[in-house]
């Protein structure tokens, strides 16, 4: 491609750009803002991908970045064809910035997407711009002496169109101000629309007067409005949690500062450092203030949370002592009446007839059941708050299982259930564990009890075997089974299955929870396999204790 050099141009950068003709502040005004715009747009889209506001925001920042890129080409391009092309293409991002700004303000302030007819207008505008792009309506001719384009007949209309967009943003802000919305919503709407208004006004004025007076240095002021706009957006995000972003304040401040300081490297004259320092100071004040307020609010929230936490701990302690008080009282009452029924049954209060004997037996059994339930809740509560002290010593787990089995077999048969057990006892099998016999018995007892209570008819299989250093105890029933959803809360406090009370009206939801706490205290594992309607198998796995080790 044979390109012609601009008059007096000497390419000094990448053999393509001539930076000697650029104003001293050009790179400082444009490059950091170019990078900042892209970063901001990308960051917001990444964090809040699905909202239409983020997409419009990306539209603004992306168009702005392209606009800056083309303007940099206009200033520093060394070949007249490339400079001419930059002039021709500029209309696309420039109009896009205004259009996306209106769409963004509309969606953000009025909390709804633009109507369908707006989108059709958008399509028509872009089609029109694409058609006029290569024509003289856009860029009429090229001034070879100054190496710059001469704008065509369409540009006055474009300036008017841009002005209409700015007025439209003002109208959206006014609509929200006079509407009946909350104070915070109004501040949010006002902050964003004011930021947008200032940015577009500065941008428009600098472009228009730059073009009018042919003093293109005025254009350098334009992008500063973008910094103000981005600062206000950051403020709105930090304070009102607009967009789903939490940590923007600090990141924006650091990134902005990095680029502001980086920009100083591009300054040619020492006098311009004052302007740059002033701009950086402005940025730090706005973002820093917003950040400090955000942090203050966060600290306050944390303090409130800590206070609430202390209150909650107190409430839990009070609840525990209440549970203990109530359960002890209830257990006392049950025990007293149980002994009265026992006295009636063994003839302490004299001869009784069969009807009284039948009733007294029912009362005795009911009291016994009541005491067991209270014990279950009390034990779970003690296990949970750590008041249980385990007396760990080497013991035979098989013995515990056999004892419990002997007790429970009678209970199961009384309910018409068959109970089968397999206790593998080969020479090499080890059933010795390091544990507390009382609590392990409680765990085994609870699992078998559970199987009895939830099986209306059928069999219960109990199995104990040594699985390579692990003692595996399992209880299989032909009960109602457990759904996948119920499995998740099965071993939690009060975690009963949805249909459990239909089979077992006394279900407390503390039995399996206690088993889990006990087994985990013995460094073991509890698990369940189940199929609805077919039954469940509960497992306890314990580490075998080998004295030789």
């Amino acid at each position: 491609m044979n390109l012609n050099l601009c008059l007096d141009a000497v390419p000094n950068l990448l053999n393509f750009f001539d930076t000697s003709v650029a104003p001293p502040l050009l790179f400082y005004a444009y490059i950091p803002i170019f990078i900042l715009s892209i970063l901001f747009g990308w960051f917001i889209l990444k964090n809040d991908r699905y909202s239409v506001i983020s997409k419009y925001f990306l539209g603004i920042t992306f168009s702005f970045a392209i606009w800056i890129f083309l303007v940099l080409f206009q200033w520093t391009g060394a070949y007249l064809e490339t400079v001419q092309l930059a002039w021709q293409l500029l209309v696309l991002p420039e109009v896009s910035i205004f259009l996306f700004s209106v769409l963004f303000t509309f969606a953000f302030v009025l909390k709804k997407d633009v109507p369908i007819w707006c989108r059709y207008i958008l399509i028509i505008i872009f089609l029109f711009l694409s058609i006029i792009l290569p024509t003289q309506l856009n860029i009429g001719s090229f001034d070879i002496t100054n190496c710059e384009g001469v704008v065509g007949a369409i540009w006055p209309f474009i300036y008017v169109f841009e002005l209409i967009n700015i007025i439209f943003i003002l109208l959206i802000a006014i609509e929200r101000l006079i509407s009946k919305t909350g104070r915070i919503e109004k501040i949010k709407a006002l902050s964003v629309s004011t930021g947008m208004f200032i940015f577009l006004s500065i941008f428009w004025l600098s472009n228009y007067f730059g073009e009018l007076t042919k003093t293109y240095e005025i254009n350098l002021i334009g992008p500063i409005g973008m910094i103000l706009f981005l600062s206000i957006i950051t403020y709105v995000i930090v304070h009102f949690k607009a967009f789903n972003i939490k940590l923007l304040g600090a990141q924006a401040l650091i990134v902005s500062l990095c680029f502001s300081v980086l920009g100083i490297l591009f300054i040619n004259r020492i006098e311009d450092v004052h302007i740059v320092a002033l701009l950086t100071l402005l940025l730090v004040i706005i973002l820093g203030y917003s950040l400090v307020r955000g942090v203050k609010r966060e600290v306050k929230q944390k303090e409130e949370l800590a206070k609430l936490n202390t209150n909650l701990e107190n409430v839990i302690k009070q609840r525990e002592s209440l549970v203990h008080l109530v359960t002890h009282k209830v257990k006392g009452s049950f025990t007293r009446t149980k002994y009265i029924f026992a006295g009636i049954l063994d003839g302490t209060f004299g001869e009784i007839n069969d009807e009284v004997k039948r009733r007294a037996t029912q009362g005795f059994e009911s009291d016994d059941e009541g005491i067991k339930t209270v014990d279950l809740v009390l034990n779970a509560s003690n296990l949970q708050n750590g008041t249980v002290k385990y007396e760990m010593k080497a013991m035979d787990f098989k013995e515990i299982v056999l004892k419990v089995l002997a007790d429970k077999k009678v209970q199961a048969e009384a309910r018409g259930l068959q109970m089968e057990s397999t206790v593998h006892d080969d020479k090499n099998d080890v059933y010795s564990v390091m544990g507390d016999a009382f609590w392990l018995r409680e765990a085994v007892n609870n699992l078998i009890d559970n199987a009895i209570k939830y099986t209306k008819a059928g069999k219960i299989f109990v199995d104990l075997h040594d699985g390579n250093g692990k003692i595996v105890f399992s209880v299989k029933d032909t009960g109602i089974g457990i759904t996948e959803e119920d499995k998740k809360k099965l071993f939690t406090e009060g975690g009963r299955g949805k249909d459990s009370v239909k089979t077992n009206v006394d279900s407390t939801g503390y039995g399996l929870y206690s088993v889990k706490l006990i087994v985990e205290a013995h460094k073991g594992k509890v698990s369940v396999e189940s199929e609805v309607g077919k039954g469940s198998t509960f497992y306890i796995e314990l580490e075998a204790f080998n004295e030789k080790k």
Partner: protein
Amino acid sequence: MTQKISKNFWIVLLIFIILSVVYTSYKTLIKKDFIIIEQEE
């Protein structure tokens, strides 16, 4: 009337814009089809 403009429609619009940009680039960079004003100092 549907409340959404289909995604394909936006893609077609984008292709149209890109084609326009490519054509403008071709016209300016390769064919050099633009009017040059030479101003005398």
